[in-house]
């Protein structure tokens, strides 16, 4: 028996699907062929000359392989194993070996049936061994879809929410809910490539994992959208808020030594896509922000696809607009791009008459048409999701929504984006909302729109500064003549005046002070700081300067403002800055008031 395999050993294995040390142990010796590493363990094909079967060795035996005890083309005696199905391929099975011992080192060749039938083992030319790169190996592994081990049995699977940077080893079981493209970058340290995936666990917690260079190349093909993996040996760090796309304080980095194994034989879990829906009427605050939002709505209409030429590379991209409505009685247009436009977009067009409810994850909020939503590559569209929100929305729509007249959230907004009027009608507050909430803007500035009156401009305040004509920075009077600009490092004979003023504003709920800079103050006052300064210096019975300021008061404007916290004399104070001023559009304001009235009615 020394150098030969058990005849029909594989058949014995298959008929004897699990073997442990307590049962009677049939002597099964098989040849190891196609031995190769998968993660921290090895797989091979068990060969008895007649049949082959996929097999996996436990991680505890990895050292025996490294030390050369178990070799490719060598023989092993199976001591303890189980036979499992490969999911999706019912006829194919694989053997999970938990105990085995080496019987013989590498034979010269793979044992073949006909050889066995005659003289046992004859010499055959040794198979050529080609050095393989990691990616080749990965390709091969993917080629014959090496089954993963039941890591969950040996290690406890951690919920994603429990991970932190100070933890030792952990294993997570996650689904790839988003896969980025491989990007190359070029910086001071040279070229590199990077890609990231979004992972979601059973509980719906998400985390972003990033891989650079070798790790990126190693795992790029392994991670497939929608599949489930065991991952361990990654590192965590605090998430960079600037780039973060999922709700998690941490993000994960995987390196070459991290372990990523597809959990193909696991009972599939479906992570819920966790949504954090923003009602359509509250979208205004997200306009042109970095935050991505989720939305749920009833499909009102679906456009045909259009081709849009992308500005930066002239590529034609398919786009489709859908209009969604929700219980706020507002509608918003969502632009689906690329595959979402042609794929799920077509599906939506076909079923548009039934007004399905759709939920979309990760949308950008733009200011096109006032407020509009756009999909990005990682957006996710779910038609008729099975969730309480969807049910509620559907029943609302069937009961009353269909009959209700809706208004587009972005309507009535001035289209010029630079006057700050972008979402003037969607995040409207009263002054009391700001003044009664002193901690507003503590973390980061918050933006609102307010319709209010200028009630007072102190005439004796310093309302402008001398500014450099090129860079608008403050200049100082030069020694001899002219003005010195620190920013430009040069002297100019002239300077211009730019406003920086405090104005008192009032609405029906109270009053407060706004600071206004040049462009906005010009719109409020109606002339430039230089012109106002000229009026001020004019002597005369009627002071034109005073008159101008008086004219300015008790006129109403739409203000776009930011609220932030500022430390002044070691005391925190709210600072409200005017970011945009625009004239009142009375029709739009009336519409807003009507909306408020109907909202009050329904809430009563």
């Amino acid at each position, binding site marked *: 028996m020394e150098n030969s395999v058990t005849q029909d050993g594989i058949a014995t294995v298959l008929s004897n699907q699990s073997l442990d040390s307590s049962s009677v142990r049939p002597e099964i010796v098989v040849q190891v062929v196609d031995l190769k590493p998968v993660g921290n363990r090895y797989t091979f094909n068990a060969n008895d000359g007649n049949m082959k079967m996929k097999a996996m060795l436990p991680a505890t035996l990895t050292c025996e392989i490294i030390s050369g005890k178990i070799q490719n083309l060598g023989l092993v005696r199976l001591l303890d194993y189980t036979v499992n199905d490969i999911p999706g391929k019912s006829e194919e099975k694989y053997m999970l070996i938990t105990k085995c011992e080496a019987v013989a080192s590498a034979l010269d060749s793979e044992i073949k049936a006909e050889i066995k039938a005659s003289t046992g083992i004859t010499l055959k030319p040794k198979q050529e061994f080609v050095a393989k790169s990691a990616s080749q190996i990965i390709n091969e592994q993917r080629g014959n879809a090496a089954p993963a081990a039941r890591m969950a049995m040996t290690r406890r699977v951690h919920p994603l929410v429990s991970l932190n940077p100070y933890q030792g080893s952990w294993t997570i079981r996650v689904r790839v809910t988003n896969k980025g493209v491989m990007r190359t970058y070029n910086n001071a340290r040279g070229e590199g490539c990077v890609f990231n995936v979004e992972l979601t666990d059973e509980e719906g917690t998400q985390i972003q994992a990033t891989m650079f260079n070798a790790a990126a190349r190693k795992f790029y093909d392994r991670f497939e959208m929608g599949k489930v993996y065991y991952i361990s040996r990654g590192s965590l760090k605090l998430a960079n808020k600037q780039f973060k796309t999922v709700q998690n304080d941490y993000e994960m980095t995987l390196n070459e030594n991290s372990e990523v194994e597809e959990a193909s034989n696991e009972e599939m879990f479906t992570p819920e896509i966790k949504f954090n829906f923003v009602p359509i009427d509250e979208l205004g605050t997200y306009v042109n922000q970095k935050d991505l939002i989720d939305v749920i709505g009833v499909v009102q209409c679906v456009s045909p696809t259009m081709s849009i030429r992308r500005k930066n590379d002239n590529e034609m991209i398919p786009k489709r607009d859908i209009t969604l409505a929700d219980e706020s009685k507002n509608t918003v247009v969502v632009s689906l791009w690329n595959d979402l436009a042609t794929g799920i977009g077509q599906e939506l067009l076909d079923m548009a008459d039934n007004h399905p409810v759709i939920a979309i994850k990760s949308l950008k909020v733009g200011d096109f048409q006032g407020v509009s939503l756009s999909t990005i590559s990682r957006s996710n569209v779910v038609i008729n999701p099975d969730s309480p929100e969807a049910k509620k929305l559907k029943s609302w729509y069937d009961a009353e929504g269909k009959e209700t007249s809706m208004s587009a959230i972005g309507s009535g907004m001035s289209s010029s984006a630079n006057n700050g009027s972008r979402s003037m009608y969607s995040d409207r507050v009263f002054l009391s909302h700001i003044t009664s909430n002193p901690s507003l803007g503590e973390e980061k500035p918050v933006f609102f729109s307010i319709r209010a009156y200028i009630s007072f401009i102190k005439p004796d305040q310093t309302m402008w500064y001398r500014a450099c004509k090129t860079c608008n920075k403050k200049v100082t009077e030069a020694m001899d003549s002219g003005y010195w600009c620190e920013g430009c490092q040069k002297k100019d004979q002239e300077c211009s005046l730019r406003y920086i003023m405090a104005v008192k504003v009032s609405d029906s709920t109270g009053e407060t002070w706004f600071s206004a800079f040049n462009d906005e103050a010009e719109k409020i006052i109606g002339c430039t700081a230089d012109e106002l300064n000229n009026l001020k210096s004019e002597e005369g019975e009627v002071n034109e300067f005073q008159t101008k300021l008086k004219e300015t008061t008790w006129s109403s404007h739409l203000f776009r403002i930011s609220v932030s916290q500022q430390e002044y004399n070691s005391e925190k104070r709210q600072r409200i800055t005017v970011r945009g001023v625009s004239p009142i559009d009375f029709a739009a304001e009336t519409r807003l008031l*009507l909306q408020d*009235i109907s909202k009050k009615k329904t809430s009563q």
Partner: protein
Amino acid sequence: MDTSSPSVFVNGALMRRYVGQKVRTVIQVIGSDIGSVVGKSTDDLQIVVRGSSPTPPLTTYLEVIGIAESDNAIRAETWTNFGNSFGTHNYNELCKLANGEFKHLFI
């Protein structure tokens, strides 16, 4: 404020409630004849306004105050050009509120 002769905000549909009473409404002028103007109410009904119309040109929108003669005719006393752009939807909603839930706020 003169409250001796109040006029009710109406759209086309509300006129029939106030036949014989003073009403005010805004119409979109469709055509004018000697002694009458035909217009469209903010709820898309046709209204005939009789009386001496103001000297042309009439703007697209016209406010008229007068006695409702029938459910689609007004004898106007006051004519006001309301310009060429007007939020008809808002006006229509105002009429509904002023004759419905918030009637008590109007005279």
